[in-house]
């Protein structure tokens, strides 16, 4: 529960006072390279390698797993 609080509530509180960005000011944010994962295939290949060579995994969301490599 503490981790939940830290991960969601504190950022919410921190960010709630941020200035608003009007829709017509979102031209930069709309670019593909501004996506959180701009290259999903690169990301999936990397995550698979790290999953098979390290003990930790996950974080970004769903994905990974399903492999006898670890």
């Amino acid at each position, binding site marked *: 529960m503490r*981790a*939940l609080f*830290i*991960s*969601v509530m504190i*950022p*919410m509180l921190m*960010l709630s006072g*941020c*200035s*608003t*960005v*009007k*829709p*017509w*000011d*979102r*031209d*930069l*944010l*709309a*670019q*593909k*390279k*501004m*996506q*959180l994962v*701009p*290259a*999903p*295939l*690169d990301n*999936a*290949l990397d995550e698979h*390698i*790290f999953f098979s*060579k*390290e*003990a*930790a*995994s*996950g*974080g*970004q*969301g*769903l994905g990974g*797993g*399903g*492999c*006898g490599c*670890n």
Partner: protein
Amino acid sequence: MQLDERSSLRSALAAASCGLLGISPALASADTPDNFQVDSALLYYAEKDRVKVAEFSGIFTQTLGEDETISLSPTIDSITGASPTGATSTDKTQTFGTNDTTPANTLPVKHFIDHRFAASVSWQRPIDRLTKTVLGAEGSAEHDYTSLGINASIARDFDNRLTTLGAGASADFDTVLPASGIVPQGLAPLGVSTNTVTAFSTPAEPVFKQVNNGVVAHTVTSASGTIIGGGSTSSGGLDSIYIPHQSRGKEVIDGHIGLTRVINRRTLMQFNYGLGISTGYLTDPYKIISMIDGTSGETVGYITEQRPQNRLRQTLYWETVVHLPEDVIHLSYRYFWDDWGIRSHTVDVHYDFELGHGFYIEPQARYYTQTAADFYHHSLIDGASLPDYASADYRLAQMTSYTYGVKLAMPLGQDGELSARASYMKQTGISHPADAIGVQTTQDLYPGLRAMIFQIGISFKL
């Protein structure tokens, strides 16, 4: 000047309309019905003296409507080479079974060849103007491992689409089928006949075990060298004993919640919390542990490894994307912890350096560190009482890993991209631990890893 203003007005209007239609400004690409997007890559992964992997992977996405897509992602792997067995190097030749020896002062490895076929399908659709869902399924098959999984996630925009809250869950059902057909007993010594072959006398799935031609009295040995039984040869050198191909199940449930927030016109930020539970057979059936003499440090035998049947994993993840005047920087941090005693920090940065006309060069760097699992032992002392769980898998040891890479990309047609990527990964651990005994102090007890990764990618819209 007037043209610039008009152009900037046009892009602002486009962005505004995307904002009205899309869930997140970051996802507001120009998807229209009947678009078919192809992303594909060939990857070659080569460890120094160890594993080599050639892989094809793709994501094929069909746009079905506004914000609705269905995508199929196939992956084909071919894996060859050798993987550390868990046994440590020593100053004498080591023997692990028939025709399986490792010279002195050399890391024992097991050679293998495998192929993996995997595919996932994902259907993204909007529920309403502010909410979208993603439903998915995946499957993966190797000759000694299969996995089937389903997943679902939902994301909803708030606060004039400046904030997105998301949540998701997945369930994977895996089956481990050791290549030998036998799931080794955990923490059992190698080279000692357990004479348990009668346990396999009524097989559901009979297989023959090849033994040496002409040998009448023999043993049946698992891939890791464990002698699991014996019998007499009927004729032609084939074992007269039927052994069912054994398997064990493993279930993996994951869930996450996340918050994505537009900070300002140039900055996006995400926070995620993830929770995962793994249950079932989490042991690696191929890994073993060296048993050493408590005084001399010489290896006197080997046992199979055994891990707990449960694992609770948690992650905190933070990522920010910042649009600099021309370039874009992605920076992320992950903290991972589990109930096996592993704590891990990961920092990842990508810098998209714009070269103009759609060309860019992207340096990438990643730092990873982890503590060892509570039950990790580079070796165990012969004669001492065995722990409940033990593994000498280097991936559960304390380690630090650095990955450096660079990607070059050029535009291909209107919406396509051609790219090449090269990365170098280096893992280091504790080669000379404080608890090394005798001859072990002269050996490298951590099999460090160095790997090169090459990738070419092509993406386009049809």
